[in-house]
């Protein structure tokens, strides 16, 4: 392991210090977000081609998974 790398309590090694906010694990209310049983709010966002996608219109009555991830970049 090089000097600029660290290993956190989960055993993941990365370039960020163990104390960095990106590596701290939340302890409060979890899981976060809207509750099961609530209506999923509609939204419109651009896709990778820059086209606007409106959630409920696009899924057109199909079931859907709305997945949140940190970044495609890092």
């Amino acid at each position, binding site marked *: 392991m090089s000097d600029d790398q660290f290993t956190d309590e989960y055993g993941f090694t*990365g370039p960020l210090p163990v104390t960095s906010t990106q590596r701290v694990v*939340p302890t409060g209310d979890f*899981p976060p977000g*809207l509750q099961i049983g609530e209506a999923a709010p509609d939204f419109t966002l651009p896709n990778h081609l820059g086209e606007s996608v409106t959630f409920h219109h696009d899924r057109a009555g199909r*079931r859907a998974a709305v997945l*949140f*991830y940190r970044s495609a*970049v890092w």
Partner: protein
Amino acid sequence: MELHQGLHRLRDQDIELYAISYDDTEAIADYVRASGVEFTLLSDVESQVIRRYGVLNTIVQPEDVPFYGIPFPGFFLVSEDGIIVDKLFNRHLANREGIETILDSFAGRIQPGDDEPIESIAEDDGIRITAFLRGGGGVLRVGPRRRLVVRFEMPDGLHVYGEPVPDGMVATQITVHGPDGFRSEPIEAPPTEPLDFPGLEHPLQVWGGETDFVIPVYANTDLGRALKDESDPSIEIDVVVRYQACDDTRCFIPRTHTLTLTVPLQPGVKPGFSRMKYGGATAIDMDSDAHLQRMVERSSTRPAGGS
């Protein structure tokens, strides 16, 4: 992301996938090019939808440029009529879920996949125990979480015990053993049912029928490093199960079984930064430095505290 590998199975079930991050469209376009993913990637640069769904990562503070604005990683499942029917989020950024979790959650039952490691034993007391690794096509990678499932199938009238048990009886115990760098989290057990037993002051706590014990597992960097020089690496995971089965009138002797799963290990996939090196991971073919640079510029022109 390894989601695209199982995407056809979502399509088979007519389930649409929308993946949202705070990346700009240029970054996700580059990612689509480099990775070949075929589901919908959406750009939420101001984290508006992330906030609307209540999943802004609050551990990351506004001054943490350019990381502020990311969500907690996880997903919501939405029914045909637009209602949230399930959700699953991870606390740790390196833990991620796969297609199988989405499929199982919609189906309401964990189903072993065709290629996933599975071992099973049937006892003469009538109980069948199956251990299988669910997720990622049965392949372990550094980072993504899998579920190790220990399924008890018990004939009518037979049950096994949860804590607390009276003296002389054995509560169900499951332990998981693997090499360094293989990590398991606490067992998720379904609630027990109370069972009144003649002569006992308190009801017994039992499981019967089909009962799944789920152990979240993952490989960390140590495992990736240890196996990086092997051409076809795999690890053995021992699942040790101890239990005692009883019906309403008699008990069988306690049993201990070890089910050994052989699990292939493959490198994780990491962003394409020119200066970053990760143990046991291969970098994706895109210039992440340029995208990160834009992210920094965008963050530093945003009003303090975000929008």
